[in-house]
């Protein structure tokens, strides 16, 4: 029986190919996700493992500053501590190092390299010192390391982007706002990985003069004699440490980083797997559909098997054996294609600005196991129903010349109706639940949406008749009528084919609605909250020199300048966060903040204003004292006001002197400008533009430009998510190819008849293409309706999180529909071509 199944498999290469392709794609996404994260992990591991000092002495504040590049003072350790450590027995050398985050490389026009308005590019690179190879993660590719005050080395990526060569001059914008020219002595690269992180490298003395004060370093790398353990060296160092400094062994550091990577990459992996699972789900539709059709076509053959004595379970097993063989083969191919997907993901993340390497791909055994399990599981589950149907074919069907009529849809419709109703019920309830707990509400809404979607998919065969009738009216003439008839002939098949597309379009619509709503809400918040006429930000939202605010303050037509300074901090309720320093009077002119308790006017030295959500979370109110851990150590702050978070302001707000004590530097994160009402806006804008001309890393945005810069970023995120859904949509379109190709095969005689009575090849093609169009539009519209409804629901639930307004991006949704229709048409081209090529006589003579 198994042999019969296998022989059957190879006898139908086309069917095999189409079924396999869908499994391949689904498995490829899953495998690709694992390959991608494993490869990333491997690149990072090589980076962590090599060139670790035995012990690193660094500021304790480094624990909570590493996540933020939001500005603030650079925590340091004294270099003379290094001299003391060097005296310890067992220590061979101590290498002081400097690493700072806010160095901007300027291009030939004096603009930040690669920066564009509203984007994340800012020309910002990490500034560092060149160190001996034992502790240096980078290597020189070209030229030599910098060794003099006017020399610099840059990473190869930045050098390529700049279009300079060793020996050329490059201009750097320093955190102070000064520009300085350096001679490029060499190019560098992180060892053993292709991470696209930018680095500017100086010798230690130069870096110290540029970024720190004499006697300071950001860390000390300690190398020990091989005979001494890392722990022993650390224990010797600890007594020497001043407050605010810590010593960490290389192993500890590696395991800390490793832990962070595990959780970070785990999150990334899960995130990508969600999209992979969507593809798998879509592929399951296709597999189900293919096997249904194969079984229908083979009714006679299977009945013959039954007639000559095969038992029901043998027939069942033969179909499942066929499915399993396809699944294993396709899964193995899928793993190979997964490598391509992994490369695609790398490119996607790189395009989105993540500095991920495109190093060697890593195939873990786990990837292969998961791929095979996923491939087998979806294929067998999808084939089970058609196989059961096949096993109940009566032997007499061998003698009949008809394919079995489509079974009644009763049970399926009932289940679908139930899920749909239950989903609706949950959906109605979820906003209420969200009032008390947003997360729970969102979860419930997710379950509701899932139930509704599956319900709709189950009901789709019932919907197919009226829907295709409506869509079909777009086409007059006989081709349209025939195409419409074909889509309604087997509603179950039409629904499954369209349903695959429904899922993809549904998710895209949800994302689209959420993005549009967020964009509109943000614009609304800008209107409501930001009273300032202009917002000054750094490219890529990097902090910029405090001189910018001063220059604007001296500009004619400017009435008020409110600067915002931030520094990393660890605080109750928010964990690792930023403290925000403002001038209480100025900020209230620039922003209309809603203060729910106390008054911002009372914000004096040592006080803080807390957003009401955080306050509620930690049980704080006006009068409470909160201890925070700042760059300068633990500090007590008295809460004097509570406010509603708005316009990007959230968490702990203090006045500027307090913020400075907590670690803010002379750099600003944002500057709000209120103009003199008597002076026209364009005059003031021009004056400000002139004032900030010396600072190429800032942009001055009026309210509408500010809104669109935020919208653009949401749009970028949106495109990233869409790219991840592309595969699911492609699989769905493949499903249309599949269904139509097999339908054409089934309708050979019919096509022959049409040709005999005078239909041109073009007419046949047109009929098949219209059929695809109807299926695609039906699937897309169904997905869009569910998606928009679910998007609206999520918007209501997330209203408390700032997405207060509902919006639909109609042109975008229309584009989805057009793309789905075009995709459907393209998917039909090959089956249509095949259909039109059928020889009339073979078609009508088939008996």
């Amino acid at each position, binding site marked *: 029986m198994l042999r019969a199944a296998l022989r059957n498999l190879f006898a139908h290469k086309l069917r095999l190919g189409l079924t396999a392709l869908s499994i391949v794609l689904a498995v490829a996404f899953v495998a690709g996700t694992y390959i991608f994260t494993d490869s990333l992990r491997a690149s990072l591991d090589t980076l962590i493992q090599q060139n670790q000092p035995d012990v690193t002495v660094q500021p304790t504040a480094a624990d909570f500053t590493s996540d933020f590049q939001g500005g603030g003072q650079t925590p340091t350790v004294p270099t003379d501590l290094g001299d003391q450590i060097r005296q310890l027995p067992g220590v061979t050398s101590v290498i002081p190092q400097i690493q700072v985050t806010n160095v901007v490389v300027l291009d030939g026009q004096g603009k930040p390299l690669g920066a564009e308005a509203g984007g994340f590019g800012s020309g910002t690179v990490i500034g560092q010192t060149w160190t001996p190879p034992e502790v240096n993660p980078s290597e020189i590719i070209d030229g030599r390391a910098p060794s003099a005050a006017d020399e610099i080395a840059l990473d190869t990526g930045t050098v390529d982007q700049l279009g300079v060569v060793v020996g050329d001059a490059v201009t750097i914008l320093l955190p102070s706002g000064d520009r300085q020219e350096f001679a490029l002595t060499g190019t560098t690269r992180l060892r053993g990985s292709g991470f696209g992180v930018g680095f500017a490298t100086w010798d230690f003395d130069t870096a110290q003069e540029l970024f720190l004060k004499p006697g300071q370093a950001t860390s000390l790398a300690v190398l020990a004699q091989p005979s001494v353990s890392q722990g022993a060296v650390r224990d010797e160092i600890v007594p020497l440490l001043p407050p605010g400094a810590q010593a960490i062994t290389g192993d500890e550091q590696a395991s800390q980083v490793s832990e962070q990577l595990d959780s970070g990459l785990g999150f990334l992996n899960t995130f990508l797997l969600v999209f992979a699972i969507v593809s798998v789900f879509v592929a399951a539709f296709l597999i189900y559909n293919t096997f249904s059709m194969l079984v229908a076509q083979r009714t006679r053959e299977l009945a013959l098997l039954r007639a000559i004595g095969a038992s029901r379970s043998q027939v069942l097993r033969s179909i499942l054996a066929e499915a399993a063989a396809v699944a294993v083969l396709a899964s193995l191919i899928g793993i190979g294609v997964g490598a391509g997907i992994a490369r695609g993901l790398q490119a996607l993340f790189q395009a989105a600005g993540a500095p991920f390497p495109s190093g060697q791909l890593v195939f873990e055994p786990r990837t292969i196991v998961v791929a095979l399990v996923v491939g087998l599981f979806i294929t067998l589950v999808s084939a089970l129903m058609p196989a059961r149907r096949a096993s109940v074919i009566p032997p007499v069907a061998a003698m009949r010349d008809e394919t079995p009529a489509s079974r009644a849809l009763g049970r399926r419709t009932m289940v679908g109706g139930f899920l749909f109703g239950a989903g609706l019920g949950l959906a109605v309830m979820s906003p209420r639940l969200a009032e008390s707990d947003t997360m729970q509400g969102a979860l419930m809404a997710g379950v509701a949406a899932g139930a509704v979607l599956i319900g709709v998919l189950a009901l789709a065969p019932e919907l197919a008749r009226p829907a295709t009738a409506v869509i079909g009216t777009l086409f007059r*003439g*006989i081709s349209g*009528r*025939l195409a*419409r*008839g*074909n889509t*309604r*002939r087997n509603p179950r098949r039409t629904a499954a084919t369209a349903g695959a597309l429904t899922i993809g379009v549904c998710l895209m619509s949800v994302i689209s609605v959420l993005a549009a709503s967020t964009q509109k809400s943000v614009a609304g918040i800008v209107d409501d909250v930001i009273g300032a006429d202009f917002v000054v930000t750094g490219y890529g939202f990097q902090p910029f020199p405090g001189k910018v605010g001063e220059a604007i303050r001296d500009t004619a037509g400017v009435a008020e300048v409110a600067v915002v300074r931030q520094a990393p901090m660890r605080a109750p309720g928010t964990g690792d966060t930023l403290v925000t320093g403002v001038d209480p009077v100025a900020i209230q002119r620039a922003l209309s903040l809603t203060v729910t308790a106390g008054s911002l006017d009372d914000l004096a030295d040592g006080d803080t204003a807390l957003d009401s959500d955080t306050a509620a979370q930690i049980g704080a109110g006006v009068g409470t004292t909160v201890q925070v851990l700042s760059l300068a150590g633990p500090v007590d702050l008295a809460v004097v006001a509570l406010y509603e978070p708005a316009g990007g302001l959230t968490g702990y707000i203090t006045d500027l002197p307090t913020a400075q004590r907590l670690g803010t530097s002379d750099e600003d994160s944002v500057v709000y400008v209120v103009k003199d009402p008597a002076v026209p806006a364009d005059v003031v804008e021009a004056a400000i533009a002139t004032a900030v001309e010396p600072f190429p890393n800032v942009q001055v945005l009026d309210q509408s430009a500010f809104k669109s810069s935020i919208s653009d970023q949401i749009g970028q995120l949106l495109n990233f998510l869409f790219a991840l859904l592309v595969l699911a949509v492609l699989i769905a379109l493949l499903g249309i190819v599949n269904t139509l190709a097999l339908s054409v095969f089934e309708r050979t*005689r*019919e096509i022959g*008849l*049409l*040709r*005999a*009575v*005078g*239909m*041109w*090849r073009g*007419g046949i093609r047109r009929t098949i293409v219209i059929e695809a169009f109807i299926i695609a539009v039906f699937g897309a519209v169904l997905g869009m309706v569910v998606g928009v409804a679910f998007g609206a629901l999520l918007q209501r639930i997330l209203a408390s999180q700032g997405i207060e307004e509902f919006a639909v991006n109609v042109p975008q949704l229309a584009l989805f529909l057009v793309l789905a229709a075009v995709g459907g048409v393209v998917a039909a081209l090959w089956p249509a071509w095949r259909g039109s090529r059928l020889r*009339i*006589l073979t078609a*009508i*003579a088939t*008996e």
Partner: protein
Amino acid sequence: MTTTATTAASARGLTKVYGEGEARVVALNDVDIDIEQGHFTAIMGPSGSGKSTLMHCLAGLDSVTEGTVTVGDVDLTTLKDKELTALRRDQIGFVFQSFNLIPTLNAEENITLPLDIAGTKPDKQWLDTVIDTVGLRSRLDHKPSELSGGQQQRVACARAMASRPAIIFADEPTGNLDSRSGAEVLGFLRRSVDDYGQTIVMVTHDPNAASYAQRVVFLADGRIVDEMRDPTAERVLDRMKRFDIEGKPVADPEA
């Protein structure tokens, strides 16, 4: 063969060879035939004698290996696929043995199919006549699956007539029908010849069916071996019996 009336279609030196080498089959061997306009011609012969092949070649469904085929005054062998298709659509009607109808179209839509493909408006009066002749008025909005076999064949006949083609070709139109339904269909075909001057070529191996025709052409091993005017079932049967006794009357001269 004498040409007493105008010819609706004709073939000269028509040869059709399938396959090559070992699998080579000469389905038609140098056939000359004239189909008289306004007549009901039956093509008879044993199974495998080339009846269907002859019909397919005459109707422009299949290419010929040698010889010419003319319908009206057009030489089919010079036509491209598109022109052939248009000719079938406008000049020729078909009734096949089975699978004559598009399952997704109702009876009326099936009847007007060639007209709809051509994009021409049906002649309402003629259509009514045809529908009434085949007696399907009450079944017009039924799908083929809701019609009996006889009704389905009558729909096919109506479709063949609807565009007023120069010739209708019918390949074993009653092969799958019980004798009563078969008689209805044949009666209708004959009436369309008598009442409306329709030209019909019918392939059959049923002597009774052949008796509805005005002329029977006998085919054996790809050659025309005999012809009979105003046949009766008995005479045709007799002639067929002689075939069986004589065996193969014409041997294939060279492969």
